[in-house]
């Protein structure tokens, strides 16, 4: 690291468990989980679309529940288990059913909202909110997609939900 970096007096030592691995960071309290992931840990799969909790691109799981990393302080989730898009597929590269469904249904175009959509979809199914197309649309409404992949996202979530049920 560049030794010109100034560590502010209020730096915390934060331990984060991400995708099953432990990480230790010396960061200011104001650093969000999103910026910790992208800038410090080089886990850039989680995207920054608005940094204000208004688009869903930064969706990750904390203790299995979907949340927005941009409005979460990194310090807040010490001790919790965090999953990002990089941790979704198996170790051997086998895609999660949701990922495979997204590919098959062409549920993305530019791909920028896609990790957030997928993380949101995995949780949506787990929550039991993927029982119908109407429910999927409502419970996925927190993930904006400007390319307009919505109908294909619904198809992918429907397909993956069915597969995961059986």
């Amino acid at each position, binding site marked *: 690291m560049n030794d010109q970096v100034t560590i502010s007096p209020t730096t915390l030592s934060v331990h984060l468990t991400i995708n099953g691995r432990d990480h230790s960071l010396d960061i200011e309290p104001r650093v969000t989980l999103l910026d910790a992931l992208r800038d410090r840990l080089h886990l850039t799969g989680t995207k920054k679309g608005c940094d204000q909790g208004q688009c869903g691109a930064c969706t990750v799981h904390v203790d299995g529940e979907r949340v927005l990393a941009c409005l979460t302080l990194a310090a807040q989730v010490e001790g919790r288990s965090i999953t990002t898009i990089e941790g979704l597929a198996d170790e051997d590269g086998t895609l999660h059913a949701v990922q495979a469904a997204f590919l098959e249904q*062409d549920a993305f*175009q530019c*791909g920028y909202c896609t990790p957030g959509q997928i993380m949101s979809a995995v949780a949506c199914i787990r929550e039991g909110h993927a029982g119908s197309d109407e429910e999927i649309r409502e419970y996925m409404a927190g993930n904006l997609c400007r390319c307009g992949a*919505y109908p294909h996202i619904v198809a992918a979530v429907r397909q993956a939900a069915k597969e995961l049920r059986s």
Partner: protein
Amino acid sequence: MTVHDMKHAASDSARLEAVGGRLSRVDGPAKITGAAHYAVEQQLEGLTHAVVVGATIAAGKVSAIDTRAAETAPGVLAVLTPDTIMELNGASDWLGNPPSQPTYAPLVREVTFSGQHVAAVVAETFEQAVAAAALVKVWYDESPAIVDLSDGKAGDGIPIDAMTKEWGDAQAAFAEAPVRICAAYNTPREFQAAMEPHGLIARWEGDELTIWEPSQWLDGMARTYAEWFGVPFENVRLVSPYIGGGFGSKALALAHSAVAAAAARMLDRPVKLVLTRPQNFTSYGGRAATRQTVAIGADREGRIQSIVHRGVNETAVDGMWVEPLGSVTSIMYATPNFSSRQNVVRVNTVVPGAKRAPGENPSAFGIESAIDELAYELGIDPLEMRLINYAERDPHAKKAWSTRQLREAFAAGAEAFGWAKRSSAPRSMRDGHQLIGWGVAAGTYPVRRAHGEAVVKILADGSVEVESSSIDMGQGTYTILAQTAAETLGVPVEQVSVRLGDSHFARAGVTGGSRLAGVMTGAVYKAAGQALDELIGLAIADPRSPFHALQANTLQVRGGRIASPRGEGPELSIAELLSAVGRDRIEAKGDSMPANSTPEERYKNYTTIAMSIPHTEGDYSRYSWCAHFVEVRVDEDFGTVRVSRVVSALDSGRLYNPKLAESQWKGGIIMGIGQALLEEGIVDRRHGRIVNGNLADYMLPTNADIPDIQTISVGIPDPHSSALGGKGVGELAIVGIAPAIANAVFHATGKRIRDLPITLEKLI
């Protein structure tokens, strides 16, 4: 020009991979696993972070800036102001016109719009830069601003004579027409709002500049950077393999781009600068606000006698943008008399820019609403009305259409939608508290063309590489170029890797105007064909080739293996053949520039749009077409409008990949729904400032707003539009949706809304 016949593959899996096959995106695995790196996600040694400070007035001067608190804040490396930032050269515009000023200042003292960049802070961390930027104090001498299109201070504006289209005597014919309608249609300021915010990383190594920036036009932007900094074009490398949406907004190097590159030069460290989401609403232009009046005179059988059209769009005080408002008005319907004129009005706003289908999109809102109003006036079915006035050829260019499957689109769409079951009177269909309405509208987008080039390499292991500085922002370039190369060469698509988005690769013009697929498939087809010819030539003629003894006239490649078409003699993989003849690669560049083009002409072709080929060049007029059928449900108490069904039939010629084309079409339709019902840049007129510059208050459609959308392809190969027979896809479907919805809302409620968006307070 003939459509090059693709050797349509034999097996199902080969058909999937061939041009026209529904191959899944080859960049899919990277995108769905988080492995795709977007521009500002590069990890670099010594990376610094920059944040821009925007003006809080719409017009006036910066009278003072106090940077002391910012300079001494933790981690701050530099505070840039108009006084301290290095001077840049003026750069030519996208047509290649020389700059109006010899120098360029991306941080300004003279403010002409709210949010204009006046300062920037560079620090070691993002948090430090943000905190320090808030400490920069700026004082202004504020002047009266022209706040929007309807500001009285704006006046009538500047006539744009190049937009005038006239034939016959439109005014007289309108006055004499037995049936006349005339109305004004307005669209507000809108934003592209791609999910990836604008931003970049700039790094200098000596006099060489590398820029990681989402870009729809690497060569054009590289030229701008080179001119700003006075370095050779070859010294600039723009890298953009993945772009998180563009929609027209990412084709130019902008003020914040200059700030980042200048800061990197001054500090001799890489600089990452990302615009905040609110800054994305003020730092570059979205779609200009527009106003049109459309007057149509017709006979009592519904035949149009005259169209008189006037349009105006806002532009900046110090920049010119024209949104061609007569572009659909002048070609959609046959009329013996026509007049369209357009002004622009200077407003204190950032220069408007391109947003999906600039010109055609708002133009269609006018004419496709107006013809609907005429239909109701005459008691004629709106679909029938459009067929009565069908233009058999381009009424403006007076040329035959290259292909126009619009009748087929109307027929297919109407059939699938069930249009025949419509009850004609407004407010005649309901379901409980919901009024139901059905609307139809047509859309179109010209086939924009350009010369393109691509490099195709066959490598020693038999794999194929396609290289171009063109880009994929979600339209599927990676995939369709893989399909083109795979089919042309006869190799499985898994053996093809497509490398895009690096200005050091083979040149490309702007990815805009829906032209890329047509341009690039042609270039790749040509390059791959040349590579194939060389491969086959080696196989036949080289004495070391196992085929040499065969004395064959030709050989074919299937599934990556070379054999005689008659099945005799050896059968080898490409790798085996190359090894036998001692070659480690074959490389071919295909380009469609005229053979005797000079280096200057090539440079101009790729770094400006000045050499785009007009869509009416030669004997034909080339457009994509569509017909949208929409059902809306309007709550009779609340006035809320929901789109419950969409059926669109579209003519984009031959589809290179129907799966991806459908996604593009649906994307355009969804953006059109946003335009019709939700999107509006709201200006606080006291300050000339957008107050809803964020994704909660500038509303995009959510998943819950969008029903099932059915798209039907009615296109046929168009030999006059592109080498492989396709026409534009990406910008077609957004054209015509807003009027279809406005027409449906009228049918549901009996209320005609002519100002977008159609929000609840306009209906209750």
